[in-house]
């Protein structure tokens, strides 16, 4: 102790602060890299378990089974007139015996609704709508007179300026116990419902333990409240009529980086969290939820900019507050293909929204952080996201400023500095390459080895090109959050899927 006091008492305040900062950053960085290393190991265990468990499963049995639970597919749409018909047709062709597709026309100003009415022979019905979750008013509900489209329900509502608001309206209409939330422009695998419902059915049903004789009953089982799967970029894939014919990594550099990032986040990140039952969120592009718990937790928050993580957080908090065990499951296979932003402007807007959403989420649910009452969520998920997701761009920013200061004042030890930079660089390349290897273990999506290695090589340039962008836009999002700047939903020009270019506008953050 004396040594430390002597050490600190010798230097000026700025010297002491500088040394403290250096050690703190080193410890922070090392712990972050250790965390990634642990996630990599956990994700491999999780993937191997999934693969072994499902190797001999005959998924087709559910297609004919009267015991299959019903699923409501909820897809909000805003000004999707150009592609809406093919998108809905795609949603109507899932391999599943018992489901409905609820399409929410969220106050589109184009011809989305008109096209739907004409194409699917829709008529307005007297629908007993009950608002279990808050949303902007529902104007009309349509059903098809054509039995071929009897699974389709179309809601026409006042624009709520968020996907969350539209999704809540969809949940209010949903008639089944589980609902799948997706974006109408995403391309989903035909077996999505089967693959995502299975984790719900792999858990024991209610095991009830009696306490105090015959009055009080305690549920004693782990209820699966949500499931998710990996997402990938559709940008350079071959698509025909809502079907992916050939998977390819995106050719353009920005979506290509995103593909790599998604694989790392889903296959390595989410699967690692799955192993210790700490999945932090289920992507807004594709997630299946237990409707009962989602409603009891209050549904989507239309004011949240990270509505997907917010919902999972509230569902988890609800379960904990009611002393119920729960889990969120992830499957390592890709079931959803989404179009990634190709321009820096749209990409930046999206990432700034994500950054702002994270800050908003941490602020809204701050009572969970370090709260042992919330178990893993309070002691693992939230601290991880607080330190390694929320604070990372800030610490990185301060670190770079400090580096510049050291360079200017000629205090830098160049050999050591270079060794540390090489350390971080090689480690980040390793983590990304491992994530891509795990992805290969799961399924060989890319036809040629050239495509696979080509994507792997992106890891070498990511720290110089892509990472600074993520970092910058996250800081921009935080700044907007702090100054309370009003969020504006922008338009994203869809590129189309290897088909004649079509123009449509959808919400993008």
């Amino acid at each position: 102790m004396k040594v430390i006091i002597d050490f600190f008492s010798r230097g000026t305040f700025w010297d002491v602060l500088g040394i403290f900062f250096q050690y703190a950053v080193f410890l922070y960085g090392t712990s972050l890299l250790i965390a990634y290393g642990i996630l990599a190991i956990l994700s491999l265990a999780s993937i191997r378990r999934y693969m072994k468990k499902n190797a001999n499963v005959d998924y087709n049995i559910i297609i004919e089974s009267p015991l299959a639970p019903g699923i409501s597919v909820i897809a909000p749409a805003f000004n999707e007139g150009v592609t809406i018909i093919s998108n809905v047709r795609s949603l109507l062709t899932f391999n599943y015996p018992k489901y409905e597709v609820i399409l929410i026309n969220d106050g589109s100003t184009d011809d989305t609704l008109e096209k739907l009415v004409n194409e699917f022979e829709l008529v307005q019905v007297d629908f007993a709508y009950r608002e279990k979750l808050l949303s902007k008013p529902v104007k009309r509900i349509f059903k098809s007179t054509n039995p071929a489209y009897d699974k389709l329900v179309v809601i026409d509502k006042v624009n709520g300026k968020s996907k969350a608001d539209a999704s809540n309206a969809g949940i209010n209409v949903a008639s089944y116990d589980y609902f799948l939330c997706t974006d109408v422009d995403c391309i989903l695998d035909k077996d999505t419902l089967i693959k995502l419902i299975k984790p719900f059915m792999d858990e024991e049903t209610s095991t009830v333990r009696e306490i105090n004789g015959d009055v009080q009953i305690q549920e004693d089982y782990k209820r699966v409240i949500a499931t998710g799967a990996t997402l990938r970029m559709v940008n350079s894939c071959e698509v025909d009529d809502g079907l992916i014919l050939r998977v390819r990594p995106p050719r353009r550099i920005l979506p290509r980086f995103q593909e790599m990032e998604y694989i790392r986040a889903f296959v390595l990140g989410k699967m690692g969290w799955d192993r210790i039952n700490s999945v932090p969120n289920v992507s807004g592009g594709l997630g299946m939820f237990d409707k009962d718990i989602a409603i009891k937790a209050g549904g989507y928050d239309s004011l949240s900019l990270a509505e997907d993580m917010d919902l999972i957080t509230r569902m988890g908090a609800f379960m904990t507050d009611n002393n119920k065990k729960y889990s969120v499951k992830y499957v390592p296979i890709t079931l959803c293909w989404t179009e990634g932003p190709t321009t820096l402007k749209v990409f930046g807007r999206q990432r700034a929204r994500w950054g702002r959403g994270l800050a908003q989420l941490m602020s809204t649910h701050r009572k969970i952080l370090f709260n042992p009452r919330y178990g893993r969520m309070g002691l693992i998920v939230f601290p991880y996201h607080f330190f390694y997701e929320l604070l990372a761009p800030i610490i990185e920013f301060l670190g770079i400023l400090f580096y510049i200061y050291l360079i200017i004042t000629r205090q830098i030890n160049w050999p050591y500095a270079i060794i540390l930079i090489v350390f971080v660089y090689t480690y980040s390349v390793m983590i990304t390459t491992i994530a891509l290897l795990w992805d290969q273990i799961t399924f060989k999506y890319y036809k040629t080895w050239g495509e696979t290695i080509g994507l792997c090589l992106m890891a070498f340039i990511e720290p110089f090109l892509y990472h600074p962008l993520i970092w910058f836009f996250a800081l921009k999002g935080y700044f907007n959050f702090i100054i309370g700047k009003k969020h504006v939903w922008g338009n994203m020009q869809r590129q189309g899927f290897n088909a004649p270019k079509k123009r449509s506008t959808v919400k993008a953050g």
Partner: protein
Amino acid sequence: MWNDLANLLFLAYEQFSLLPLFIEIALVLIFVAVMATLIAYGSILFRRYNSSVYQRRLAHLSPIIEDLITEQVLLNENLGKDIPVEEIEFDQHALSNKAFRKPAVRQIIIDTLIRYRKNFRGEVGELLRKLYIDMNLVEDSFSKLRTFKWETKIKALVELTNMDIPISDSMLLPLTNSQNPSLRAASRNAYIQLSKNEPFKFFDIATEPILPWDQMEMFKIITTTKDITIPNFSRWVSYSNNKSIVSFCLRLIAHYDQRTAIPSVIDLLQTKDHQFRAQAINCLGQLSAEIAEEKLVTIYTSQPLNCQIEILKAIGKISSGKHLEFLKNEFLYSSSFDIQMNAARAIIRHNSQQSRYIITDILENTNEENQTIVKHCQNPLIKYQ
């Protein structure tokens, strides 16, 4: 030369040991990261190479195996001549192909035979089974069953079940209570398919639950397997301590319309588990158990919401007409939207003169919200709501 190398390494170590600790750690981790990256690249390439070699081998072997099956089984000249399948002999020369001795090739043959057997029944199916036995592939499957790896055991069970090869109870029954859910499910499915006399014997000893997915698989097997002896499932409803077995039996009772089980199901209404009770009520509804209707109405007020909804559905399915007034009151005076919806559906489902009168009355004399609920339930387009 070795001395020079040793000296160099020693010097390097000396230099290394003079560095600060965090730089030493960083250097070690750089080495680890570089090696791990190289190994990962190697693994990716190796896996792709392996996969392409396998595909090529498969492409080469598949026609040979298909030819073998076609010649020996599908085009076997003894088929259709009233010769018992057991007495049909294969061309031993064709079976003794050297390539067929390799384990990987034998696995491909097993997989192909299973695929064929799923498409062929009767004499051809039996002959495929005989080929599996005569090529001693059955021993390959049994050796897999004896391994410690649960996933290999499952593979063996799937193979033996598809080939209809009996497995002794002493080997199979313990697996039906395995702690591993996947192995447990596979062995239970195998037991039902392979045990001709008492396919449900493991119900008596099952201590581990049947998970919902497994129930679905088992349901399919039970309802599609030929010559299976269907017992009266009420015996497990009455005596089993395993709730998932009772729950599954309730579904089977409803499916097989085992009306003799109604008293046992009514007894289940005493259970303290409300989800379980809801399932029993649902079963009574599917059995149209008019005998239980009075009891259901009597217990209605003391039930939680999910059981009340099931009671309303059951009364609708039974449609005796004795409790239409009860349904009407529930519809008019309940504050729960779900109760109103289900009461309205139950009234409409009766489809009698009295029920139609009630519906007309509601449509003419109640508020707009009630009318919308009734119209919603009456609308044939709204199939799922």
